[in-house]
């Protein structure tokens, strides 16, 4: 089901959500001192993790995009205070918005340029898509839970990220009409990486897969497709952030 073919109930929900979002939009200012502190902390952690990730600092574009996108707006109101913590936050339906550190590392690893096409399997809150769009990428995102897709669409529209297209449905076969992609983000992998996604990765492109549970990203898997079609995998570990001690 596409967002364009939303039933009346969906439009009603959308209106309610928009109204709620409008009311809430001023409740948590962004950028703010708290958001600045959050991203300062994340950049500090990235410096500590450089042996695991292969880079010691975020590129200026990624850093700016992360600071630009208002994270609280992608979090349900009751947990919005946690938006300034470097931790995952529940967004309903058994899903979470990723930990800022993980979003930063994944975005950096994708090494995007403005105008790149990115496929995302698992829209979730829409936050990762917003960050990618803020970098100038065209994002094609598939979500299997209609309510999450609707909520993400509302938030992205309201914030003006029109470079993101969202589809509710089966992402196993990617988005063939828009393939190949310069990068692919798989946040909703089942028990295997769908081979069709590999086929839709442009030679030289990268796929990033966070592996773990809803609160802990245990490792990041990067799939690279060479020009001759061969693939290489890199596993970065453990990109786990534990609140008591910082990066591990």
């Amino acid at each position, binding site marked *: 089901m596409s967002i364009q073919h939303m039933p009346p109930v969906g439009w009603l929900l959308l209106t309610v959500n928009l109204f709620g979002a409008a009311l809430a939009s001023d409740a948590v200012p962004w950028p703010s001192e708290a958001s600045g502190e959050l991203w300062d902390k994340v950049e500090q952690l990235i410096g500590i993790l450089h042996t695991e990730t292969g880079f010691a600092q975020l590129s200026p574009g990624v850093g700016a995009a992360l600071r630009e996108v208002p994270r609280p707006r992608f979090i349900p109101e009751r947990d919005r205070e946690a938006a300034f913590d470097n931790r995952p936050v529940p967004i309903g339906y*058994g899903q979470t918005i990723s930990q800022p550190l993980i979003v930063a590392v994944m975005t950096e690893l994708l090494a995007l340029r403005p105008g790149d096409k990115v496929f995302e399997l698992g829209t979730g809150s829409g936050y990762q898509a917003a960050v990618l769009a803020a970098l100038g990428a065209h994002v094609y995102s598939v979500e299997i*839970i209609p309510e999450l897709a609707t909520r993400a669409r509302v938030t992205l529209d309201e914030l003006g990220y029109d470079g993101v297209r969202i589809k509710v*449905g089966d992402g196993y076969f990617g988005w063939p009409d828009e393939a190949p992609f310069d990068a692919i983000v798989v946040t909703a992998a089942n028990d*295997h990486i769908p*081979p*069709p996604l590999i086929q839709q990765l442009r030679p030289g492109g990268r796929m990033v897969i966070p592996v773990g*549970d809803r*609160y802990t990203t245990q490792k990041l898997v990067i799939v690279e497709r060479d020009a001759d079609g061969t693939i290489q995998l890199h596993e970065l570990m453990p990109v786990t952030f534990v609140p008591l*001690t910082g990066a591990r």
Partner: protein
Amino acid sequence: MRLPDAATANRGTHPPFAGVALISAAALAYEILLTRAFAIIHWHHLVAIAISLALLGYGASGTFLALFGARLRANVAATFVSQAWLFGITTLLCVNGAQQIDLDPLAIAWDPRQIAVLAGAFLVLATPFFFAANCIGLALWTSRQSLSGLYAADLLGAAVGVVLLLIALRTTDPETAIAALPAVGALAATLAALALDWHPRAVTVIGLLLIVAQILYMPMHLSPSPYKDLSRALAAAGARVEIHESGIGGRITVVGNDVVPTRGAPGLSLLATALPPPQRVVFVDGDRAGTIADFRAGSTSSAYLSQTLGALPFALGRPIDEVAVLRAATGERVVQALDLGARHVVAVEPRPALYAIVCGHYAELQGAVCDRQRVDWHTQSARAFLASSGQRFDLISLAVDADPAGLDALASDHHVTLQAFASYLRQLDSDGVMVVEGPTRLPPRLSMRLLATARGALAQNGITDAGDHIVMLRDWNRFVILVSPSSVSWPERQAVRNFAQTLAFELVWLPGMREADASRIQHQAVPMFYRAARAMLADAYRGDCYQGHRADAISDDRPFPWLSTCWREWLQTIRTQHDADWAGIDTGVLIGVAVIAVTGVTSLMLIIAPLLLLRRVGRESAGAGVRLATFAHFGLIGAAFIALEIAWIDHLQTFLGNPLYATSLVLAGFLLFAGLGSAWAQRRGIAGDLSLLHLACTVIAVSGLFYMLVLPLVLTEAAALPLWARAAIAAILLSPTAFAMGIPFPVGLRAVQRRAPALLPWAWGINGCASVVAAASTPLLGAEVGFRDLAGLAAIGYMLLPLVGLPARPEMRNDLI
């Protein structure tokens, strides 16, 4: 607190036997149903927590009766009737209410508020036990003349309740069973009102109205947490439930989806040229148990199965005709074996309901899986089947699936232990292979322990060069380990290399491989899997930890394959680096510690604090020695009793094939036999108390030794018997221990009553508190020290009782009072 006096008893004002039996039956049924509720809502049966909750309610009731018993005894009828009504009303109310609490145990590491939420859930769920215990405690307290009868009613009620519950759960769901509990409470209250000639119309009407209102407006429904596999599957667009039924083996749900169909293929190559077809997903208690595809001729192809890690044994080039698929679930590995050339498959699945789904409702879809000419299904545990079968196989296949988050750190699995692997290897042909598949973690944990276990099992079968008998491959999130009694030949090694290269799998271990071979496709900063495998299989390796993680073989005594924290090295890190590696601790262990803290605090608040705050009981009237002896005696009994009980439950789970059977049998068995032991001790004269205690402790010590040395052998030998016979054997085996364990409590009570009666409430309180904390702690302790050693420790705890000296020698009695 005073024991019942003759005058009170002679008035015949005690509640009826039937009322006590009903409350006792319903309370134990509620305790067992909680384990079902936990399994459906969260992720485990959490047996120890259900026991802890029951003890919390009973302990709080002991304190309550100690403080207010005199007033309550003045009106037994009103108290019993009202408490029975409250029990009935709160069973439904509290299970429903607890589900409204936004508990997410996994978030404890991030959100300390979850600890308070956990405590709230504990208090809510323990409430019905409090009222039930008030009924039973008051009944026992108010009648000396009919004490033995009431006691018998209490014990028989519990035993009958368990049997009736198990019968009910074969045909009905846990919700219906929970919804029936208020009726049992109401019936008990009504019987008591009639027997005691007290007719409280207002109470009856209000009670009935509350129960009816709950049934009408708060229909009982156990909802899986949003994080369960089932909840997520149902949230997807197009999801539809095709089957939803409950049975003794769990709640089975089959979900189909035409919009976003599931395509499960664990270990499918990134380079796969064939794709898995749309599948239905089968869930047991909300956890994904397997998938069912439509493999009818012309529908979809199963060709993708040759491009998964699980196809490794078939790539080896050895003839594979006879295959045993252990824990076959929905038969995916059965399909694979048949597709890849097996002539005949034995599929072993302990959950009959799962088999009924696969080869009943969906028999036509998977074709050959239910073809009796090619596949024999056995609905029993894998170890029981292999123990009874003399059959030999070319391939024994097993998969380990658990929550990759680490929540299963305290989940036991007796099918991947040293003893299990050794028995699998014994049933292989000389050229046969055993394969184990499972999910990977970084750093390697489960796979490392499985390698150590395989090495140990080979050694038990006389093979010391394990490295030549093992192959291990992996992809980005899964591994497969192949073990064979015969060494892997050069041509076979080449075949494995070809298989891995063609499908972009990474070599982790292959005899003769070099480190450079381990990072051809899947790169890590250092090839951790290879190095871990090399360490595990090296001739000189003797360690139990490897780089901060456990690397010992999984054993029947410590059957926790997912447990990975190596505490010795963890503590060493703190000492050397003055920092703790919190990320190195299993999440399940963290939650276990939080549960212990919560139970400890709540039991102190509900059991001990009231004694301290409301009445300075016993302080003035007892000497320090007697106080210390009382606390030690009842604390030891409380902790040791529960530790032994939970150790038995763990041990019998595999033997009986179902955690519900094991929990029910052990809880009812211990209650019954310990109750009989207690009653027997009460009928004997006080003069023999010390010798009675010595006798009990000797029996417990001997049975503890039996548990440590002989029980595993007996259970293995009897594993193939029918369920009723296994249950009878288990009951007979635990009866002497339980009988003896019932003796120290009344002996201690009698001693306190003689030496310092004012300490009686403290005796109850300390015992309750120790029991509650022990119930929560036992799984963690069992995982760390092993259930055999834990049983030994508990036996030592009992053996210390005579040394504590609460029942004094006859010549000392007058001096000590």
